[in-house]
């Protein structure tokens, strides 16, 4: 058995090797060894780039340093995070509220950095939730999620949160078409009549980043996959790839792969914006959550939104067009000049590159091959710049450098291929380990790519690292792209399942990084600004403890008078005013995670005692030489007991009394 397996493995190896020789004419061998020098960041030195990497099924965004691949931070966005209490403490529970109730998890695929004039400005990072459609905003001063907006009339928020050149809008496009929210209960096999896709445009307030669902564009029941905004000449446009133009509702693996071509959907968002502002849209009654974190109260609240403007391109003409694109396109990427749109058919053997200029002309000339569900379809040849021939198998995504080159990931042939956007010539190819999904060049989706590296985020890991049982970390590789040939310099494991990522120069962010929150500006309703403001109060069966933490004691640390049936809220204010001095807090038996309180912040820990007794609580983050001493006790007495509410710190023990 073992022998035959080995033989099979050897045979497979030979086949793969032969096949690779065949398909990879000019393959470089630099990949094997790696050039660790180029990824080496000496102790105490900083990385050149922050790499914001989507977490996929962990619902978080992780931040790595490039080129070292060191993990710097995990930012919880759509998932609860017991490590710091996000989604567990009373302040942040509201962030995960939706019209479906509290949703503690999601599938986070893509991120976008805020842009000014098409260049990264280092203000915000946006993230999407695919499962329960939402978009989130991370503040890059605090590296915290500060806003989450739910998307109505949507299923599978995949082509999101891609952004326009001046952060006017981020988008949310539906991977799963569904019946709209106002007529939800229909037979599934009436898909073609009743199911619709939507492309949502979410405006971004230029001052504070606040999101608002400005309008939705109603589309046929196709699956929107990925998207990119235009740039420069194509500034007013947004491009979405789509598959399932067959409009299948079952066995899509077969039924959505019937047609030779699907589409790239081109939406003139400027025109759509005009229609919406002119009141041409239909106002739909919906219900969705809009959650925001207040920086001063350190507390999130949910606002319920009830309306959305819907624009139907069948009625409001001339702002949506379809461009035929071969074989279930996935990536839909616009080069830095904004002239070329690269469609990547997952099952195609070529990469079509569309010309924006030609698209404009075809629209002006009405050079249509027909209509799809009432929307004009442009002629493929009329909008095509050209095709990259024999680039590899299974193209997925494309990023760009500043020198006119494109870098496309190939899932099936497991490689990155560098090619020239204008000449469409393949210039170089390197293997990835294994089966790359997304890739990232710093600034590679903007008008101003920083270049230097391309990072591969792989779907299959297999033998890259020490085995860890059936489940493995996802692998990533960094390649140096400063020369003509791509060179592997580092291989590193990641957390979650990375999809898309952005990298931004360190100096754009580090100068703005908040070190602590000012106590003076803390407006939390239960803040204790100093130990003099600590107290314990009872309101019915609710007991509120306004507590402080500072190296190395909690105040109050002896509390009595709580009774079975009470609900206790510990509002802990960290009195420290220095960088990197968080305190943690936890109580024995609590059905929640710890809280981790940053300097100057107040966080609330909910605890409902389930029995009488004396319960220790303590600081969970090693803070000082006397951290082990940072503890206290809460006494819980029977319901109806006559123990008065009492609290103290440092109170001397009473004089010894006679033993009973």
């Amino acid at each position: 058995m073992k022998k035959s397996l080995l033989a099979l493995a050897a045979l497979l190896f030979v086949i793969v090797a032969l096949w690779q020789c065949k398909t990879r004419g000019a393959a470089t061998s630099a990949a094997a060894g790696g050039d660790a020098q180029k990824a080496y960041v000496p102790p105490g030195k900083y990385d050149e780039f922050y790499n914001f990497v989507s977490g996929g099924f962990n619902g978080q965004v992780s931040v790595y340093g490039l080129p070292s691949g060191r993990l710097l931070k995990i930012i919880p966005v759509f998932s609860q995070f017991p490590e710091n209490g996000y989604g567990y403490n009373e302040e942040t529970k509201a962030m995960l509220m939706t019209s479906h109730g509290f949703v503690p998890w999601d599938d986070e695929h893509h991120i976008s950095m805020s842009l000014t004039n098409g260049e990264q400005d280092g203000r915000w990072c946006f993230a999407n939730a695919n499962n329960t459609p939402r978009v989130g905003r991370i503040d890059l001063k605090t590296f915290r999620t500060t806003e989450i907006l739910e998307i109505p009339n949507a299923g599978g928020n995949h082509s999101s949160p891609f952004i326009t050149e001046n952060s006017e809008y981020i988008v949310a496009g539906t991977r799963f078409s569904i019946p709209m929210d106002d007529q939800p209960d229909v037979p599934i096999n009436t898909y073609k009549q009743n199911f619709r896709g939507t492309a949502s445009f979410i405006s971004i307030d230029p001052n504070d980043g606040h999101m608002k669902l400005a309008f939705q564009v109603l589309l046929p029941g196709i699956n929107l996959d990925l998207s990119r905004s235009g740039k420069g000449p194509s500034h007013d446009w947004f491009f979405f790839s789509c598959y399932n133009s067959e409009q299948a509702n079952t066995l899509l693996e077969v039924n959505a792969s019937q047609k030779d071509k699907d589409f790239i959907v081109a939406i003139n968002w400027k025109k759509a914006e005009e229609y919406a502002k002119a009141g041409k849209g239909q106002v739909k009654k919906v219900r969705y959550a809009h959650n925001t974190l207040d920086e001063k109260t350190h507390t999130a609240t949910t606002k319920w939104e009830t309306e959305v403007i819907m624009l139907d391109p069948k009625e409001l003409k001339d702002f949506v067009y379809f461009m035929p694109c071969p074989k279930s396109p996935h990536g839909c990427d616009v080069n830095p000049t904004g002239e070329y749109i690269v469609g990547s058919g997952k099952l195609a053997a070529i990469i079509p590159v569309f010309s924006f200029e030609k698209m404009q002309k075809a629209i002006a000339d009405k050079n249509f091959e027909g209509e799809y569900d009432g929307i004009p379809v442009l002629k493929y040849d009329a909008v095509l710049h050209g095709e990259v021939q024999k680039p590899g198998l299974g193209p997925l995504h494309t990023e760009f450098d500043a020198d006119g080159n494109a870098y496309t990931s190939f899932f099936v042939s497991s490689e990155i291929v560098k090619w020239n956007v204008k000449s469409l010539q393949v210039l170089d190819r390197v293997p990835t380990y294994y089966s790359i999904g997304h890739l990232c060049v710093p600034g590679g989706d903007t008008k101003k790519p920083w270049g230097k590296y391309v990072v591969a985020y792989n779907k299959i890991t297999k033998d890259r690292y020490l085995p860890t049982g059936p489940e493995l970390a996802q692998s990533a590789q960094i390649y140096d792209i400063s020369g003509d040939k791509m060179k592997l310099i580092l291989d590193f494991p990641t957390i979650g399942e990375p999809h898309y990522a952005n990298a931004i120069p360190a100096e754009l962010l580090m100068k703005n990084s908040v070190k602590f929150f000012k106590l003076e500006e803390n407006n939390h309703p239960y803040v204790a600004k100093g130990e003099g403001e600590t107290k314990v109060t009872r309101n019915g069966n609710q007991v509120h403890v306004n507590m402080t933490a500072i190296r190395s004691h909690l105040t109050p640390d002896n509390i009595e008078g709580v009774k079975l049936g009470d609900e206790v809220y510990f509002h802990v204010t960290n009195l420290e005013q220095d960088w990197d001095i968080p305190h943690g807090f936890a109580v024995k038996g609590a059905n929640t995670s710890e809280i981790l309180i940053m300097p100057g912040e107040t966080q609330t820990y909910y605890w409902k005692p389930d029995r009488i007794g004396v319960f220790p609580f303590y600081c969970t983050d090693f803070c000082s030489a006397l951290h082990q001493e940072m503890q206290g006790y809460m006494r819980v007495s029977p319901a109806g007991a006559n123990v008065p509410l009492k609290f103290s710190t440092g109170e001397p023990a009473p004089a010894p009394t006679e033993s009973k």
Partner: protein
Amino acid sequence: MHDMKTCHFFLVPVLALLLLAASCGGSDAPADSAATPATPSSNAETQMLAEGKGIGEVKAVELKTPLEAERVSRGEAIYKMKCSACHKLDGTRVVGPGWKDVTKNRKPEWIMNMVTNVDVMLEKDDEAQKLLELCLTRMPNQNVSIGDARDVLEFMRHNDGEK
């Protein structure tokens, strides 16, 4: 935050020197490292330390009599928020020493430098180091501005019975 934190303060300057010695191009050291790198004491600094004024931006403090009432009340508010957790107003030591008579035992410059430049004080000032050995908890940097420290000083004078 790790338990090595307190050691960083002493290690970083040493490491920085080692790195400088070991590499020819070590000029791109992070501008904002966790601790201020040690710089050789200048004559002026040595003089300040010898005079019991500590080390930091505060070179000379002008005290007025009678006390400035507005400063006293502002200083008291800052004390309550940022200091009272560790310092009592009488002579008892809790986490840090009690404040009674601090203005009689220390120069005003020393007090203000201790409040505003605590990390360097704990490294270079003998009296500050003695207090650390006594209390075994590093006084936290509470990010008190020079102006706020002056108000706190006025409140300390008030606490010590000055009028």
